[in-house]
């Protein structure tokens, strides 16, 4: 076996691969242990060994581990022939906005005069009654992808509410994975028993995702049981046959007359964050924060719009878009 090992090692060196000798432990069970007394084998002359998998060989040492790694890499390579080109190194910035609340957790707060909202808002468009202005919390998350399931997480949570006479926008985001728990904890503190949640497609996407993250972090889910106004559905009901689509940026443009400049599309957000996480530039991550900020601001604007529909429809029964 050592003759074989050295020949293979020589071949490997020739091919420029890992020079570690191929350990005899690469295949875990010995041949004789695999052979059983079944007729099809008629294992003549072989002792009938225990084919049970108890009594395995001990874990291989570091040498065999690295040989195993090389084997794995090559085997995995047969199936995924993707060559990842390495990006050339450039100088870039790693500055990120906001204050660090705890290691890896950053916080941004800003205030805006608009939109203005009355003390109580009519939620009949959402088939609910009314809500007090200071109970409303508009929220939106930025996530690592759309795949769903337990492998997707939120890396940024933005929330807007009316506080102290202005629209306050707070944003939490993490720069390390380990900060997720503190981010979830901080967000939970923004919510109390009277909170009314406002989102765009949040009932199907953001809320279940956060529920999963809280569950994995073994924390109680602060969002469960709260009233939740998902503006996507009322928008669809009213404008489905009028607008080209009911995406939030379409509603923003048509109802609030807001057009974004140089906005980073939501689909690029995962990559922006991953780039920063892996030690790359923070430029795009900053743009994600701006995108998220505008999202929750517009949410509040759309809510005020929708609040006005009931009155509008009562005044002119053929309720039109302005």
């Amino acid at each position, binding site marked *: 076996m050592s003759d*074989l090992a050295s020949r*293979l090692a020589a071949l490997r060196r020739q091919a420029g691969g890992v020079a570690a000798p191929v350990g005899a432990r690469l295949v875990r069970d010995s041949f004789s242990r695999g052979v059983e007394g*079944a007729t099809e084998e008629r*294992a003549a*002359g072989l002792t009938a060994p225990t084919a049970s998998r108890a009594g395995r060989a001990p*874990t291989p040492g570091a040498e065999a581990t690295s040989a*195993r790694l090389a084997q794995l890499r090559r*085997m995995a390579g047969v199936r*995924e022939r993707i060559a990842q080109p390495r990006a050339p190194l450039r100088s870039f910035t790693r500055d990120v906005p906001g204050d660090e609340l705890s290691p890896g957790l950053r916080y941004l707060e800003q205030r805006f005069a608009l939109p203005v909202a009355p003390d109580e808002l009519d939620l009949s468009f959402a088939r609910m009654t009314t809500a007090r202005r200071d109970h409303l919390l508009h929220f939106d998350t930025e996530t690592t992808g759309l795949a769903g*399931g337990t492998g997707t997480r939120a890396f940024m949570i933005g929330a807007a509410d009316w506080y102290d006479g202005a629209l306050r926008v707070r944003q939490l985001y993490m720069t390390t994975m380990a900060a997720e728990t503190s981010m979830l904890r901080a967000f939970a503190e923004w919510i109390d028993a009277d909170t009314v949640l406002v989102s765009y497609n949040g009932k199907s996407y953001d809320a279940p995702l956060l529920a999963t993250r809280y569950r994995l972090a073994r924390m109680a889910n602060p969002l469960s049981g709260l009233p939740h106004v998902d503006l996507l559905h009322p928008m669809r009901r009213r404008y489905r046959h009028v607008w080209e689509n009911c995406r939030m940026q379409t509603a923003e443009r048509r109802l609030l007359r807001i057009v974004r400049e140089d906005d980073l599309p939501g689909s690029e957000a995962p990559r922006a964050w991953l780039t920063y996480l892996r030690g790359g530039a923070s430029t795009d991550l900053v743009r994600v924060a701006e995108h998220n900020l505008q999202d929750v601001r517009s949410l509040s604007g759309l809510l005020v719009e929708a609040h006005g529909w009931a009155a509008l429809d009562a005044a002119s029964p053929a309720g039109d878009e302005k």
Partner: protein
Amino acid sequence: MAAYLKALRSTESDAVLATHHDGRTLASRLTDKYGDRVCSAFTVFGREGVFAPLPDDLPPALAGALAARGIDRLYSHQQEAWEATRAGKHVLVATPTASGKTLCYTMPVLSSVLEAGAKALYLFPTKALAQDQVAELLDINRAGDLGVKAFTFDGDTPGDARQAIRLHGDVVVSNPDMLHQAILPHHTKWAQFFENLRYVVIDEIHTYRGVFGSHLANVLRRLKRICAFYGVTPQFVLCSATIGNATEHAQALIEDEVVTVSQSGAPSGDKHVLLWNPPVVNPDLGLRASARSQTNLIARVAIKAKMKTLVFAQSRLMVEVLTKYLKDVFDHDTRKPARIRAYRGGYLPTERREVERQMRAGTVDGIVSTSALELGVDIGSLDAVVLNGYPGSIAATWQRFGRAGRRQQPSLGVLVATSAPLDQYLMRHPAFLTEASPEHARIQPDQPLILLDHIRCAAFELPFLGGDRFGPDDAEPFLQVLAESEVLHREGDRWEWIADSYPANAVSLRSVADGNFVVVDRTQGRQTIIAEVDYSAAALTLYEGAIHMIQSVPYQVERLDWDGRKAYCTRTHVDYYTDAIDYTKLKELECFDGRNSGEGSARHGEVHVVRRVSGYKKIRYYTHENIGYGPVNLPDQELHSTAVWWQLPQTVLDDAFRSRQHALDGFLGAAYALHTAAIVAVMAEARDLQKAVGSGDGGWSAQVDASGRGQIRAPDGGLALADTLERFLPTVYLYDNFPGGVGLSEPLFHRAPELLRHALATIDGCACKAGCPGCVGPVLAADEGREDTPRALARRVLTLLGATA
């Protein structure tokens, strides 16, 4: 037409019957009348029942429910299973078919639901079995008004029902693929379920073998890991058919000890088994009548004797042909309800449920089926089982025979041999069937690529911490490779998932499933879907011009939309059916490594395997004449995989063998022996690792044809003679039957000397004279007297390749 009328008027069967029959009397009658065709007749004796009272600690409500269904005492093995599960152990129930295995797990599960609100997960290999189970549970629930909520959770479960099942289901009945793809990666949605999970029941574990079984073992590792996250250690209850190593297999799957219950206390009647060889019709050429003619005869006799009969055929096509013949006899009055039904995959689920219902109710007298009915779907009891051809394994044979037998009544089982060499070998050596122990199930869950796939899925479900193990070893090397391919991010001691992908979608537990085809009936302007065909069978049954049969009603395929996965057909009334001609060829793409092997060489690398359907034959019913051919113009089925191969140089072959045909026969025999040694070595199933003999440049390929002779096929599919080839460099290939390979070939290459040695030892130690299914493959009766037997030829090839005794 004449042949058909003759068959209808046949009094052959009537002559056999006088009065009412049971298995024993019919077996002896058939033996008396057709003694020359019965190669062997034996009896498996039944046994008396061994009973036990219902346990004291059974919840009264459940005892009441069981009593309402007529169960007031248990069989001994059911009581054993009860004691073991209540004692908190993992249990394996390995009693034969139809011994009441279900109650072994139903009782503990329902008791725990009633006593403690505990939850249970059931895993079945097919949806049909799953639905059967739920129906059974709901019956017991109703009988005792227990309030237990049981649901199936599979691909057909509608979206809005899923949330209700997650929150409120007490018993969730699913399958391994669903667990792998839908439940585990969304485990937070199932948090309540997992927190209260007490039992995991896995039925038919003998089907989880080879690569499929290795995948399941890893899915169970992920399941246990997630249960640990919720603070739970579930108890496993496993059921298996009779295989040679049930306990070992169960322990390998769950990586823990099990208590085995194998002595059945259920009473059973004697089973009378006949091995039946069709008579020789042409003594000069040695041709025998077809197996289907004999199966037809035996089934007719049994059904006329008022015995409920089940016929197993080896292919879907044969199911349709046999059904047609039997329907012509028994169902010619279409006003009356059908007495003969066919059953196979490819029929729509509603149709299959209907047939199962009718069988249970006893309104159907004869059923013709593929292996789809081998597994435990409850179809009531039958009196006779006829096997049209040897199913390929001893375990499957007994599993099928096990379908017959009601309580104490004697039943009949007949195995009819086809002309295939293996079947004929069995007829000459019945001891191979009766005295051999059933095959063993093997798995290899630590195969690196399989492990990598599942660690990837596990990392998606829950992050890994440094030092975490997966299976028996540290997961670190795998986590490192995954981090390098940028799906994991390492931060300090934690490895977290960061890619925007859903790994479970990329891992299929079973081999290639590239999109099912639907068959659309276009007769008279209709557009109804009448059947489904899976990808691998599509090229063989849905080519343009093919006659595709559903319940023996023929439809002709007019157009095949390959990319759209649809076949359009029209009802037809022709008097023939079609049979496709296909072959496989292999081409080396890249050689990773190689070395000398005796006077030849051994190598491993990437190969390209092509399976082509070159045309089809038209065969008339009853006479089985070949009345024409048709072309087939379909894309080849290609497989890009890894393989290990052996070769000998032409000069060596010319010196060692009298003719090229001899060398070819030797290679085919050596391929068989090496394949057997290899699948044992890597704990694979025969279908996971395929063998092929050919020339490595994709030139010619060789197979053992239906007459047992080695045949060469030229690249265009036509037959060729060995002597006419310019270069003759036969090569034995063993390749992974999975796209991209699954990690079987490389270890085989490293262990090539051992494989050669063991293949040689198998041949040398074999008690046969000229060759047999146990060493080089079945041989023709004619070859048994040859000087250069297939066995000797194979031995020579192996020795030349360097095998040492």
